[in-house]
Each structure stands twice: as structure tokens, then as C-alpha cells.
């Protein structure tokens, strides 16, 4: 889904943009009785050092000026910017800084929700949407590291083999359904978006802070049969000997 369509669908009563640029936007919106801060990328934005810094500033502004206000990440990114200049300045440091800002907001009581409405690829998604307390995606969105033809080239495993295995295994091929089965997404939304967003925020607001901060994706992945090993390994390393 494109940004305008998504914003109309998610906020039928409208929203208040503070920044509205081709590939980036910030503002606030009402969801039921709650006002949320919206931070979003659009048009498959490339996340470079400057964009990571702007999103970090938006999170820190929310923490300073509107303590406790929920933060909603709306995600459409094709990944990190692939330029020498960004690497020269330490792009991974800028992106990690954004993750730290989100963690600080979470620790100070801000509910963090993310919704992938376009595409979400690797580095662009890791330190924004993937840092949320609860991650959602729209049914026609795409989440991936790499498409199968590119993966076949790099791993030297025949594409036909990968395509056949992808019918059963959620572990390597793109798709929001796979990310749900692996435990990362709480839900995939296909209709009635305003109600689903309001319910997601209400559920988190009703959860006590310590419980909300716990990352439950490994348990969810095990329960859904998409990621069986992680839970066993975490438990053994955590408590063996």
C-alpha cells in the first residue's frame, strides 16, 4: 500500500503532519481516545545516516516534550542506504543510536508499535519497526532480507530447490506470513485497520510495564511452529550449569 492510501485507511478522521516529505513523515494522530506520535518512512525509503538521525531526534523529542505518548512507526523501506559516504561516517552507529533512542523511550513508559505497510528490508527495518513492543504488518506488505533469486545466486543453492522448500519452511523466504509464523509479527492485518490499531494500543496500555518490555517473539515463534530451536537454545544458555 502507498502512504496516502495507508494514512487514510489507518486514520479515517485524519492526522496532523509535522513533516511530510517524499520519503519521510512525522506527526500525530488520534487513535480512539489516544493521541500517538507517528514516525514513518515512505516510497521504499533508503535509510541513510541523516534519516536515522532524524528519526532518533523525533523519538527524543517525543520523550522530552510528550512523556509517555505512544510512538507508532509506519514502515516502508528498501533497507539501508548503500553509499560509501554513509559508511565513512559510520552508518551502523547512526542506526544503532536510533535503536538506543527507542529503547530509552520504552524504558520511560512509551508504548512502541510498528506497522509495515509497504516493504521492510533488513537494515532499514532492524532499528525502527523491529524495535517495537509489538510489530504488525498489512496483508499486502512485504518483509524480507533478500529475494529468492539473489539468495540462490549467493548461496549457490538452485532456485527451484529454494522455491520448493519455501512452500513449507518460513525460515528464509520473503513474506509477512513467514514473519508471523516465526513469531516476529503479532498479527497481519487485512481489514478494519483503525479498530485493529486501537485494539493493539489498548492491549499494550493495559499491560504492566515490565511485561510489556519483555520480548516474547521467541515464545511466539515456538508456539506457532515456525521457530522451534531458538526457545530451547535460549533456555539452555540462560540456565544450564
Amino acid at each position: 500500500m502507498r502512504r496516502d492510501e495507508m494514512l487514510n485507511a489507518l486514520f479515517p478522521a485524519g492526522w496532523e503532519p509535522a513533516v511530510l516529505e517524499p520519503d519521510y513523515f512525522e506527526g500525530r494522530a488520534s487513535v480512539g481516545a489516544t493521541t500517538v506520535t507517528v514516525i514513518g518512512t515512505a516510497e521504499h525509503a533508503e535509510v541513510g545516516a541523516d534519516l536515522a538521525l532524524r528519526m532518533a531526534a523525533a523519538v527524543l523529542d517525543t520523550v522530552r516534550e510528550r512523556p509517555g505518548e505512544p510512538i507508532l512507526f509506519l514502515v516502508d523501506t528498501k533497507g539501508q542506504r548503500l553509499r560509501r559516504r554513509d559508511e565513512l561516517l559510520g552508518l551502523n552507529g547512526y542506526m544503532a543510536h536510533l535503536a538506543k533512542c527507542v529503547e530509552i523511550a520504552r524504558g520511560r513508559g512509551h508504548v512502541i508499535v510498528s506497522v509495515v505497510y509497504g516493504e521492510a528490508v533488513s537494515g532499514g527495518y532492524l532499528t525502527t519497526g523491529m524495535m517495537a513492543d509489538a510489530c504488525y504488518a498489512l496483508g499486502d506488505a512485504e518483509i524480507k532480507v533478500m529475494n529468492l533469486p539473489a539468495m540462490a545466486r549467493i548461496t549457490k543453492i538452485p532456485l527451484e530447490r529454494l522455491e520448493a522448500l519455501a512452500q513449507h519452511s518460513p525460515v528464509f523466504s520473503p513474506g509477512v506470513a513467514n514473519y508471523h509464523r516465526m513469531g516476529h509479527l503479532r498479527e497481519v492485518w487485512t481489514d478494519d485497520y483503525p479498530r485493529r490499531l486501537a485494539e493493539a494500543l489498548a492491549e499494550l496500555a493495559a499491560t504492566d510495564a515490565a511485561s510489556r518490555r519483555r520480548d516474547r517473539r521467541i515464545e511466539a515463534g515456538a508456539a506457532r511452529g515456525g521457530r522451534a530451536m531458538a526457545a530451547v537454545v535460549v533456555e539452555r544458555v540462560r540456565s544450564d550449569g
Partner: protein
Amino acid sequence: MRRSFFEASARDRLLELVDAGSFRELIPPEARVSSPHLAMLDQPVAFDDGLIAGAATLDGQPVLVAAQEGAFLGGAIGEVHGAKLVGLIERARAERPAAVLILFDSGGVRLHEANAGLIAVSEIIRALLAARAEGLRFIGLIGGSGGCFGGTGLIARCCDALVMSEEGRLAMSGPEVIETVHGVEEFDSRDRALVWRVTGGKHRYLLGEAGALVADDIGAFRAAAIRLLDAPAGLSLDSVEREHALLAERWRRFGSCDDAPEIWRALGVPPGEDVAMMSAEDFVAMAQRCIGRPA
């Protein structure tokens, strides 16, 4: 006698980094916990899935420690590898060791299990930052042959401090990926000097991304890690606001720079200094003298 960190295996690095005889491995290779996804693709597996994790002491103080094996699939993070790191961080939150040490040597997410790897990276980042907010200290060490790229580069920059050697490389995208997408004019991945200037330890130290720059010697890494056991650590609104100001200033000053020497000169490195040729000791002394980097 010097012992190369770059050339050693992950297991040898780890064993020589911590106090002799103190390491106790969690889920050792004998337990044969390997990747079911690699097996499904008929790919070779490793009985530790490329990650060694356990408890040890460093200079007599209790630490938890993990080392990635760059020689196994580039040290890439899959489900088991990633879950070991998450488990180690959770263990640290209960045991409260003096530090968690991570010897990074990894290109990022393992493509054979890309979704599991990507989710694992985000789980490691979340667990690590939550642990830092509780006052736990994380020290990353980068000097292996595979460098530290992709999601692993993000995890590294979430640590309190990084120790790098000149041979260590740290970035988000590898030069090959950038060259593939934007061409050899953007980033010539076979120009070793350029790759080193952009991603190497000396540049990261001058920028302030690495807190210590050491020779390619496991003993030097050990000494730096011991010094960092007493350095300031933690994650707070104040600390991220300070980092924000530094990163904003870096972007403002250097956002139009094309290559590292421009940045070094602007930071105060005299044009006559041959950064590439200096030993780690001479380089650090120069950086302290000329640009006021801490020891």
C-alpha cells in the same frame, strides 16, 4: 610474544583472551546443537553453529563471553547462533557479571535462514539494550578476518565500548555490496587501501566509534578489555542525548566528505602523519596528542 587475533580461530581467541583455565562453555560442541535449517538445505553444519558462548573470568572478575567463528559461513547469524547470544544476555541479566564480552567476526544475517537471522539480530539488540539500561556492561572486540558487518555491525555499536585492531573492519554494508549496487566508482571493493580507510579500525578510532585501538595481538585485546572493565558504562537519556549531539555534529561537519583523510585532517591529524604506516602504539599516541582522543 604476539599472537595474531586476526589469524586465530574464534575458540583460540576466546581462550587466550580470558584468564587461563577459567572458561566454561554453555552448550559445547559435544552437545551437537547445530542449525536444522542448514541441514535441510544439505549444507555443512557446525556443532557450535559458529558461536562459542560461556562463562569465564577476566583479570579475576566474572564475565560472560561469546565469540563468532568467521571461518564458518562468514560468522553469519542464524537461529541457533542468535539464540545463544540472546540466552547469554538473559543469563547476564540474572548473574550480573562484571561485563559481557563479544568477539565479533561476522558478515551479518545468514542467508540460508534469513528470516530467523534477521529476527535474531533484532532480539539480540533489544536484549542487549535492555541489559545496558539495567547497568550491565558490554564490550565488543573486532579484529577477525570476517570483519563486523550488517546486523552484526549494529549489535557492535549497541555495546558500551569497542576494541578494534587496525585489521578489524566495521560497517553496515560491505564494500562488495555497495559496488554491486552502485558500481566500482562508488566503492571499489578491491582497493584494499580504500576499504581499510573507510571501514578499518584506525578510522573508527579517530571518529570515536571504537574506544580502543590495539595491535593485532590477543594479549593487547585482553589488556584493553581489562582496562574497559572500569570505564563508564550504561544507557540513559543523558547518554543517548550526548551521542545524538556527537552524531549530528559529525554529519554536519563531514556529511559531504568523500574519503577518510579529509575527515582525519579536519579532526586535527597533521597532513604529514602517515596514518596507514604507523604502529598501533604510535598511532594512538598521535591521536591523543593531535586530536585529544582518550587513551
